[in-house]
Structures are given as C-alpha cells and as structure tokens.
C-alpha cells in the first residue's frame, strides 16, 4: 500500500541527474557539429602559428637576442587557442542552450521540475554538462598542444595551464549566459539571440568603445573578451578569477530563479534583483583584489629578479601621479611596462591621474603633460619615460638604495623551433574528424542495460 505521506524531496541521488544531462548533451548534433567545425579552424590556426613561429625561429637561430623573444605562449598557444575562442564565442552558445532549451521546447522541463531536486541543483547539473561539453570541444586545441610537443616544441606547464584555465572560465561564462538565456526564453532561437547579444556584443564593445575615456572605457571593460586577455598575458589574477566566478554564479543563479514555471513573474523579478545586487557587490569587491601571479616563464609581467627582490623591501608607500590622458598610448605603455609591475611587487603603491579625466585635446598646451611624478619617503622625482630602465634607478634614488646587481643565468633563453607543421593538417582535416564521427556514432548506440530492462 502506498503511503499518503508526502514524498521526501531533495534527497534524491545526483548520479542519475548528471548521467541524464551528459547523455542529453552527447545525443545532440550541436556538440558534434561544433567539434567537426573546430577541427579545421583550430588546425589551420595551429599550422599558421607553427609556420610563423618557425620563420621567426630561423632568424632567431642566428641571433641569441632574437631567440630570447621567442615564446611558444605568444607564438603558438595563444593563436591556436584563439581559434578555439572564436568557436566558443559563436558556436558554443548553441550547445549550451540545448542543455535547457531542448527540455523547454519538448515539455520535459515540466517533468524535470517535479523531480526531487532543487532548481539550483538542476542548473548546477546542467552547468556540469556545459563544462563537459567545453572539455570535449577543446579536444582539437588539446591535440594541437600535444602535436606541438611531438614536433619538439616547448611548453611551460604553468603558463599553459593558466591559459587553459582562462579559456575554461570563458567557456563556463558563455555557458552560464546561455543557460540564463534559455531559462528566460520560450524558444532556443530566442535564447541564442540573447546569448549572442552578449558574446558578439563584446566584440562590438571592443571595436567601438575600447580606448575611449570616461564612461565608454568603463563599458568596454564589460566585454567578455577582457576575460582572456589577462590569461593570454600570462597572469593569474585572483580578482579576475573571482570576478568571472561571480559572473558565472550570478548567471546560474538567475537561471535558477527563472527556471520554475510556477512562480509569478513579479517574484522572479524581485529575486533577480537580489541576485544582481549580490553579484554586483561581490564584483565590486573583486575589483579591489590586486593579487596576481606572473606565471610566464620569461617573467614578462615582472621586473628582473634582482629588481623584484630589491623593490619588495620598499616599506613606505609609493605615490605615482601621472599627467597623461587615459587614452594616450604612452599611458598604456607606462601601465604595462612599469605601473602594473610595480603594483604587483610593491606592498603599498597608489597611482592617480593628475587633473582627473584629462584628454589629449585639452592638455595639448600643458607643459607638465606627459610627466609622471614618483613620491617616496618624502622625496619625489619626475620622469617622462615609460621604460623600467629609466624609472627603476629613479626609484632606487628616491629610496636611497643602491642599484641591485643583475643575477646571472636568470635570462629567458627563448625556445625557437624550425619545424614543418603541414603534417598536422592531415590530423585536423582527416584524422580527428574521423575520430569524432566514430565517437558520435558510438554515442548513438543503445545502452547495454536494455536487456536487463526487457
């Protein structure tokens, strides 16, 4: 006899839910089609990157100075994974939307939400499926890295893993946006438009408003492509990771709010507002976190080791006043070559733009425009340079410490490699697609448990 007591919810096993989500994503054509499209895209990018790196390496083999600048991170990994980024931006939303959109369109969602799982658990399981889809869609990129190693190329584990981590976060962010879009849209087509508005909209932001001062500069920072730049530069930024994590959780929370169909729209709007406010607060806190690690083998985001050690001993605050407009290319150079490195190594440094929001046009006649004032320990000095070679001695002078002696053997050797990447094209145009088709066919096979059920 069946009990009339209510069924206990929220204690259902997670395994069937996760299994179902994975089967659902593997059953769809979207993932496999995307994989097939990515093979030539990633493969050709890899081939081009290897060819260009080989040409540069041929010159580098004649000159050790040139060889020092040959980093596989910039030369091979970033362009190869860049192709993967394009595919994730344009194609991955369709894969991620399917995770929820298919159930909405078929009506299965009305069954799913009655199962003994919280809405947040359902969305979390779908996010796991999105993660699995990203891992699968990265197979061409992973295979490119493996081929690079087979060709004799060098890979630095920290910078490679950091770059892959950045792409993973980007994929999750796109997936979370897609889930949110699917949860608020009645059809997958509408959800795709909403998601692409975010991803392609980021490109529009990059092309139109980046480099402009004021509000436009702030808006440009919202671009999703900003997510990857720091990782491509070889930096692991805690604030950025926290920010992306918050954005992923925020979109997942919004998807959770909008998933149950039995809740009034007013209630959903109120809950959404709470989610957005909470995410905004955490994002605001994340922007205050300046901790980052330079994971590059050539330590391009840091001063030389001897200078790093000497600067780390600066106990008093360093105040830098910059008389430059934010859109001035010199400011970008100064920021990249000096200020960002100082902020990472000095325990207490503050940078401010003199005169607030200046612009190139309004400061044309100002004699002090272009000056950068450094104040430390009650002393100050001015420089117009954006090169560490000039600014570091200035800082040592202000701190009254001697210039540190260079540490021998700490120079980056560079990893030139002259090789022919053409055979890799065979893999990307024939071998890998064949494997993908076979895997697709394998995923369409019926489960073994059918006999047991019969």
């Amino acid at each position, binding site marked *: 006899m069946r009990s009339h007591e209510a069924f206990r919810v929220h204690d259902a096993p997670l395994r069937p839910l996760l299994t179902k989500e994975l089967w659902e994503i593997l059953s769809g054509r979207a993932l496999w089609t995307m994989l097939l499209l990515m093979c030539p895209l990633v493969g050709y990018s890899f081939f081009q990157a290897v060819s260009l790196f080989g040409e540069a390496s041929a010159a580098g083999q004649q000159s050790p100075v040139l060889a020092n600048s040959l980093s596989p991170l910039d030369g091979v990994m970033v362009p190869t994974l860049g192709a993967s980024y394009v595919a994730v931006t344009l194609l991955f939303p369709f894969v991620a939307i399917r995770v929820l959109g298919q159930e909405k369109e078929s009506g299965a969602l*009305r069954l799913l939400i009655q199962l003994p799982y919280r809405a947040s658990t359902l969305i979390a399981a779908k996010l796991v499926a999105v993660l699995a889809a990203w891992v699968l869609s990265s197979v061409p990129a992973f295979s490119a890295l493996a081929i690079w190693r087979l060709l004799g190329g060098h890979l630095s584990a920290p910078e490679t893993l950091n770059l892959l981590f950045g792409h993973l976060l980007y994929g999750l962010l796109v997936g979370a946006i897609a889930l949110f879009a699917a949860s608020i849209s009645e059809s997958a087509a509408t959800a795709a438009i909403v998601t692409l508005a975010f991803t392609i909209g980021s490109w529009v932001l990059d092309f139109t408003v980046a480099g402009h001062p004021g509000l436009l500069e702030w808006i440009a920072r919202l671009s999703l492509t900003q997510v990857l730049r720091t990782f491509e530069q070889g930096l692991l930024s805690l604030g950025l990771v926290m920010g992306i994590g918050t954005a992923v959780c925020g979109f997942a929370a919004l998807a959770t709010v909008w998933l149950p169909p039995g809740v009034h729209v007013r209630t959903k709007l109120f809950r959404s507002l709470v989610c957005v406010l909470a995410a905004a607060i955490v994002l605001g806190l994340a922007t205050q976190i300046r901790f980052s690690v330079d994971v590059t083998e050539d330590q391009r985001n840091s001063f030389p080791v001897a200078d790093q050690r000497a600067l780390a001993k600066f106990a008093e605050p360093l105040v830098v006043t910059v008389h430059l407009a934010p859109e001035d290319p010199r400011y970008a150079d100064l920021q990249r070559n000096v200020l960002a490195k100082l902020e990472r190594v000095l325990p207490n440094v503050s940078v401010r733009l003199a005169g607030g929001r200046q612009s190139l046009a309004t400061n044309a006649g100002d004699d002090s425009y272009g000056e950068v004032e450094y104040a430390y320990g009650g002393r100050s000095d001015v420089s117009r340079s954006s090169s560490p070679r000039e600014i570091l001695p200035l800082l040592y002078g202000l701190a009254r410490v001697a210039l540190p002696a260079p540490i021998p053997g700490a120079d980056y050797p560079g990893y030139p490699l002259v090789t022919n990447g053409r055979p890799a094209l065979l893999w990307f145009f024939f071998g890998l697609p064949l494997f993908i088709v076979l895997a697709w066919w394998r995923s369409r096979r019926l489960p073994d448990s059918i006999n047991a059920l019969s």
Partner: protein
Amino acid sequence: MDGTFDWLSPNLPPPRNRYREPVSPPLAMMAHQRGIAVDPGDVVSTASACDEAQGQILLRVDSITKQYTDLVVLADVGFDVHAGEIVGIIGPNGAGKTTLLEALAGILPAETNDVYWLGRSILPSRRREAIFYLPDGVRPYQDQPVTRVLSFFADVYRRSAEEIAGTIQSVGLTPVLHKRVHSLSKGYGRRLMLALGLLTPQPLLLMDEPFDGFDLRQVREMAKVLRDEAAKSRTLVLAIHQLMDAERICDRFILLADGRVRGVGTLNDLRARTGNPIGNLEDIFLALT
C-alpha cells in the same frame, strides 16, 4: 529545509469549499487526531459520500483562480479528492482542465491557489512532494531510447529492478524499449508517460488526457492499469474530455465548463442532482452545463 513538510499554517481555519462533501465520523475522528478543526455541522452519519477505505480527504482545493489579462480561465474552482479514488475532471476543450491540473501541481502561477493536503495548507512550491503531474503532449528526451528515460526516472526514485520490470510489463512498453522516444507512435508515447508516472512515488498522480491516442481496446487495457494503481492506495486525478472513457474508469467526476465547476460527485450523485436516474455522463454534463 530538511526535506520534510514544514507545515506553515498549523492552526488553519476550516477551508471554505463550496463542493465539500459531508465528513463521515471516522474521518472527523482522524481530523481531530491530526488537530484539524472540523465544523460539527459537517459531520453526518452517512456512507453515501465515500466508504472508510476511501474516506480520507487527501486533497482539498479551496480556491484556484487563474486569469490571463481579461480572460478568466479558472474562476474560484474548488473540490475535494479522497484517498484511493480515481477522479475525472470532465469538460470540453478549453474548459480549463489542463490549467487546473498545472495550477494544482504548482507549475503554473495562479491568482489564488489555496490547496490543502491532509487538511494542511500546501504551498505551490511544495506540491511536488505530494503530487506528480503528467502533462499532455509531452515527449520527454526524444533523442534517448525508451530504456534510458525509464532508467532515469527509476534511478531518481530508487526503484528496484522488479518494480521497473513490472511497470514496463503493465503498460506494455517491452516492444519499444530499444526505440528512441521521437520514433514512438502516439500510443506508445502515452504508455511511456504513464510508465514514468507509475514509477513516481507521490500519493497523488495527476494525468492530463491519459487515454488520448489509444483505441478502445487500449483504453480498457490502460484503465485496468490505472485501476490496479488505485488499488495500491494511489489516488488519481484524470483530466478527460472523452466522456465515455471517463465513465468507464472514474469513481467521481468534477464537471468543468468555462473555468467553473458545474458539478461534483459520483455518477449516481450527479444523476440524483439532475433528476435523471438513468442518464449517462454525457446527458448529465449537458444538463449541468
């Protein structure tokens, strides 16, 4: 939340219900034991309403109102459902049957949605703890084989292999286990949905048009399956627009037209109400609507 009911309104006033039936003495005693206030005037010594086995009021719908801008789809609908019975919500297309079931299941927001489970108010967000709803026209997970969809539901509710096999056997899904859901005929699609419903453990199962797509022989076959399920003390509420099918299987009927309840009771109750002692459900429905 610990996963059990946290009854939010322990001392509720007796629910208002225009179609509430008289409360039998055993039920009144049960209600008293559960701390539910019962109006002494409601207690009558009659066995006409329902016998003791089915006497417990499982679900009391006090008021469900659903409105889309100017269109009232459900107007203050109320009724009771007793434990172990098969209730048919009868009405033509557009009467509001599906809307009523979805609001009842908590998957459609409604202007009023006052429902009591065993005498206690149950919020829409918690209805799935007691109620499972099988919607009409749903083909879940169309790219998956039938066996995988069944396994999913069975694993979620930790069903044993015997229970799964019994369910497959009872609804006659064996010939199509290897097929993908999208390739099933309408009838087998309906059987699959029924199988999923039978695998769920909730005491009350709501089904929207469960016989749609079945021929006469299949309707009888499925009616027997539902009867067997009700015999296991499960309560079924079926939205049916085919009056013949409804008359064949349901113990009691809720006649719905234009979003309003026009009559509630057994066939004999409704016959008595319309003064037509030999009328079938069709005659009664026409008389009351």
